[in-house]
């Protein structure tokens, strides 16, 4: 029953999307070849598709609509395609992953909002609409990521941050060549990327230009985060605290005397003017009341 339904839906979707695909051809995604070949380390099955559907409903459905129903948001231009369409299904897993990572025009990127696992699960969900799809698993073995060690080395003279990535295999250390490396600095709401995403050289080294003017805490401490993504070892993240930022200890914004500040920090001129006016008027009033007592006293005496 369920399968039949899907087949009918797919057929309808094919007819509809085929009509649009000609128009949209001009806006094909331009995906670098090395990204195109990337594959998931997660085996796609019903479970991954199901959790992928949850992620899809939260993050993608508002524009792309229900997969297979071609009921995406019609007001957008270009219109977001139905993801069961050939247009989408023709793409490799690596291309879909790239699209999720970068976004374009109205489509936001999800590289910071969804974990890599979740991103793959969404792809798994999308693929569940394609019966012909056969998954190619990546060579990545996530359990091996524990073996990898990232060494950070900062050269203050040149303002360069050098990373060396080594995996401590049982057989001895192995340098990670051609692995994708990103460098971040922790900020209050997220990680600020430093320089560009680069790849390690043949010795497992990667060098980043580090900005001189990045504010640190009061003594200049920065929390540096390095992220390595390797074909075999998967994703590795390492954190360290270095005193290489600009010491920042800005005063509180309410420290100065100002007209808008609290009573204790009112400008002197207001305090003096106000108090003296009130005192002077009060003094005269006291004087007058005293006079009234005097008048009364004189009358009483006589």
């Amino acid at each position, binding site marked *: 029953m369920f399968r039949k339904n899907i087949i009918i839906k797919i057929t309808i979707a094919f007819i509809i999307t085929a009509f649009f695909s000609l128009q949209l051809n001009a806006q094909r995604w331009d995906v670098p070849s090395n990204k195109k070949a990337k594959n998931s380390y997660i085996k796609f099955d019903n479970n991954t598709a199901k959790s992928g559907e949850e992620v899809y409903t939260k993050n993608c459905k*508002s524009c792309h609509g229900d997969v297979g129903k071609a009921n995406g948001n019609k007001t*957008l*231009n270009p219109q977001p395609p139905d993801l069961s369409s050939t247009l989408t299904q023709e793409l490799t897993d690596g291309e879909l992953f790239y699209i999720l990572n970068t*976004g374009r*025009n*109205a489509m*936001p*990127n*999800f*590289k*910071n*909002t969804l*974990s890599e696992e979740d991103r793959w699960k969404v792809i798994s969900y999308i693929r569940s609409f394609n019966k012909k799809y056969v998954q190619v698993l990546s060579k990545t073995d996530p359990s091996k990521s524990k073996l990898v060690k990232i060494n950070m080395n900062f050269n203050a003279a040149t303002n360069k941050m050098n990373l060396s990535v080594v995996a401590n295999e049982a057989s001895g250390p192995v340098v990670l060549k051609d692995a994708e490396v990103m460098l971040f600095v*922790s*900020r*209050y*709401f*997220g*990680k*600020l*990327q430093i320089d560009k995403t680069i790849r390690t050289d043949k010795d497992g080294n990667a060098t980043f230009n580090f900005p001189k*003017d*990045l*504010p640190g*805490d*009061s003594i200049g*401490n920065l*929390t540096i985060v390095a992220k390595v993504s390797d074909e075999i070892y998967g994703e590795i993240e390492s*954190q360290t*605290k270095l005193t290489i930022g600009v010491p*920042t*200890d*800005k005063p*509180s*914004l*309410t*420290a100065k005397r*100002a*007209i*808008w*500040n*609290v*009573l204790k920090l009112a400008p002197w001129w207001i305090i003096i003017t106000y108090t003296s006016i009130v005192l002077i008027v009060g003094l005269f009033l006291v004087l007058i009341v005293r006079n009234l007592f005097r008048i009364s006293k004189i009358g009483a005496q006589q």
Partner: protein
Amino acid sequence: MSEQEEKPKEKTRRDFLKQVGIVGIGSVLAGSAIIAGINYDKRKTKGARIKVLTAENELLEIDRNDATKVGKFKAENLSYMQKQAREGIKGKRWVMVIDLSKCKNARKCMSACQDAHHLRPEQHHINVLKMQESTNTAPYYMAKPCQHCDNPPCVAVCPVDATYKRPDGIVLIDNEVCIGCRFCIAACPYSARVFNWTDPIRAEEDKDLVYNPELNVPQKKGTVSKCCFSADRCREGKLPYCVSACPNGVYYFGDENEDAVTNGTTKETVRFRKLIEDNAGYRLMSELGTDTRVYYLPPKNRTQPFKEEDKPEAGEHIGNNNA
């Protein structure tokens, strides 16, 4: 309340915990945990151990969070919340950047804000306006929260210190002190403040909540309400309600002292000054000298044009109905 219970499930929160602990703002977090402890007994966050002398002269060592629970009187909790709200978060100077080129008038920010602050549909802490400066200039959508001025005219005129500026730049209002004179509404050039003309929309269900000035909930009849820059969320290391609700990447929020702002949609963190410099960012009505903490990026190279049907309303304000 249900949202609070969900929080520990979120992955982003754990990531954040890790970072913050290292950066050394653990104290801030402990603070937020204490409030959470007061409000919601269900929360179990480990805090420092403290020694307490009981009425029976017994010296006990207990978790700090449990200790604050003893303050079971609403008034005690309230004064704690009021004090905390005035202190702000140390070392921070919050800034918001609004990229007008990305705003498509989706209004998710407005509804998220009204939900969070228990506002009526006509009450806007943040309002998306259809703007046009003059007949031949481009109309555009402009989200307008409170600008959290560093020279706030509203705070200057408050007779009772109900509205105040905190050390981290946020302008808040304490509706337990506000006398409802509405001088601040008159003084604000950005029309950022609203008033509770009648009983708040969720008065009944909120009546047992301890008032939190950082969220300004529960709202109170006869008092002024305003955008809080989601001070409660900042305390937890989360982006403001409006910022995270935006589907179009319009908002960036962050700390000027760290020179970093994070986009609410993509969660991408960029350098604040560079963002402003590269895009010729500006501040609203800077000629008034209000020194706002909200920056705007001009509506250039928009991903979607201004809707035709919105043009008459945009033109109304300049006395031009685009006929």
